[in-house]
């Protein structure tokens, strides 16, 4: 009896040790070996649970929508006289925010579910997978701008990292293209460099690093993807400059950005197909193209003004030089005999011969010089 109890105890310990060992092995598995295991779990055991979560999120969305609709009804009831105006404003805003209408093609709408429900995961589960056309490294965007990037794709779902994920990077630039840098999450500094004012909520902010020192960005400036990183095409809003962060780097500036997309509002997103991403998005968000063209117009106008000023200055310089040359020639012609005087004056001890006062020479470039 005692032997049987000892055996079961040992058997329990062996099972426990095996589970711990397998857990540790899972943690150190390389991604190419880890992904098949996780993918098979997602497709089999977890798939119905994710569908449950998707349904719950839909219920929550419906509840919030109903609540918003109720609030809207109350507001409309209070402002009944302004209903037509509100309706037209609503239509206008809807048309402005109609990202789908602007994209026209090459996007897959998906519902974003928070991964495991842990606040620090910085990953989302998308309710669309490879069957819907999503591929790895597809871009995830919202009407406001960059959301993240798809990392793993299953037939019916996919996983994406958010912009606050430590691995997230995007090459970015200012709207006028005067400042370029790399946007990455605003991670907490540790050790002696840790600022006392760092808050957990700041973890969702972004940093624009490596901006050349000569380029300055004002608070409120919008930062867009530059298209130079090879993944994100040019022209997607990434964030808004909050201010400059003081760093030890003496040759580059770092700016703190507020993300273009509020993390609390990441519920419905759009996944861009690779073909759509490579075809360019400059005109989708609009501002970058408008700002670019406005900047070009300003630069062109500035250039023409500068050219005019430069040519005027060059003409004035030429006139002054001509005048000086003429004065010199006239003087040389009139005072050819006095050259020796000049030489004589340069010789120490030579007698100084007083010269008669020179007669003013006629100057053609002056109006009061000579009159008939």
């Amino acid at each position, binding site marked *: 009896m005692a032997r049987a109890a000892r055996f079961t105890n040992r058997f329990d310990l062996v099972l426990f040790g095996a*589970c*711990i060992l397998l857990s*540790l092995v899972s943690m150190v598995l390389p991604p190419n070996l880890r992904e098949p295991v996780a993918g098979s779990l997602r497709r089999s055991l977890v798939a119905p649970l994710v569908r449950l979560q998707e349904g719950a999120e839909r219920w*929550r969305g419906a509840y919030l929508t109903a609540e918003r609709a109720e609030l809207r009804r109350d507001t409309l009831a209070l402002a009944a006289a302004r209903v037509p105006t509100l309706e037209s404003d609503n239509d206008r805003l809807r048309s402005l925010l109609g990202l789908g209408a602007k994209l026209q093609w090459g996007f897959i709408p998906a519902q974003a579910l928070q991964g*495991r429900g*842990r606040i620090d995961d910085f990953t989302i589960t998308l309710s669309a997978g490879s069957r819907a056309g999503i591929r790895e490294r597809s871009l995830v965007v919202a009407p406001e701008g960059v959301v993240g990037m798809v990392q793993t794709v299953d037939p019916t779902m996919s996983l994406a990292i958010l912009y606050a994920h430590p691995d997230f990077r995007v090459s970015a630039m200012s709207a006028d293209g005067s400042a370029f840098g790399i946007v990455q999450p605003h991670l907490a500094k540790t*050790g002696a460099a840790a600022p006392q004012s760092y808050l957990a909520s700041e973890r969702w902010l972004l940093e624009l690093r490596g901006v050349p020192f000569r380029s300055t960005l004002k608070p409120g400036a919008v930062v867009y993807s530059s298209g130079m990183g090879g993944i994100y095409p040019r022209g997607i809003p990434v964030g808004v400059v909050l201010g400059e962060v003081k760093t030890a780097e003496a040759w580059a500036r770092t700016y703190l950005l507020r993300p273009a997309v509020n993390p609390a509002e990441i519920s419905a997103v759009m996944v861009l197909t690779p073909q759509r991403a490579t075809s360019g998005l400059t005109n989708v968000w609009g501002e970058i193209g408008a700002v670019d063209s406005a900047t070009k117009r300003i630069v062109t106008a500035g250039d023409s003004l500068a050219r005019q000023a430069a040519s005027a200055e060059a003409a004035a310089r030429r006139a002054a030089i001509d005048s000086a040359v003429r004065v010199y020639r006239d003087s040389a012609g009139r005072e050819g005999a006095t050259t020796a005087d000049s030489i004589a004056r340069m010789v120490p001890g030579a007698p100084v011969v007083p010269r008669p006062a020179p007669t003013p020479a006629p100057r053609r470039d002056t109006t009061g010089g000579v009159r008939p």
Partner: protein
Amino acid sequence: MNWSATIRTVLLCSVLVFLHYTLRPLLAWRASPDFLIIALLLAAVRVRPGVAAIIGFIVGLASDSLALGAFGAGALAMTLIGFSWSKLKAVFFADHVLLNGFFLFLGKWIYEVVMNVVERRMEGAELLVQIVVWSSLSAFVTAVAGVLALMALRPVLETRAA
């Protein structure tokens, strides 16, 4: 544990797993109750420690499959908790609701600590605040939800004799 008790336990655990993937997203709290932990406790105190470790491992690994970083961390934490609970139950775990609540708090807090430390997402003061404030709050909410669930399910529950 006879077949009737086994089926009841499986059903109750299924309900708790269902709640984890339906009620939690509906609540959407910063520190929401972890029904998987409650289900693990419910199952762990009714089976042998080795089986509890396997259940914890499977539940943790399934939970990990939805996250890209630190795959296996949840499995490690759940294995530890499942085995420990089953062992504790065998040693001195009294069939007292508040004591169960305390162990739920401890289990969830240890789970959070293991996850935060293994994932290495935070360091220094941020990690300390996460563990002391948010993990504790999450563990407290889980313990309260667990106590309520145990009180509600007491008539249909039958624990293994210590």
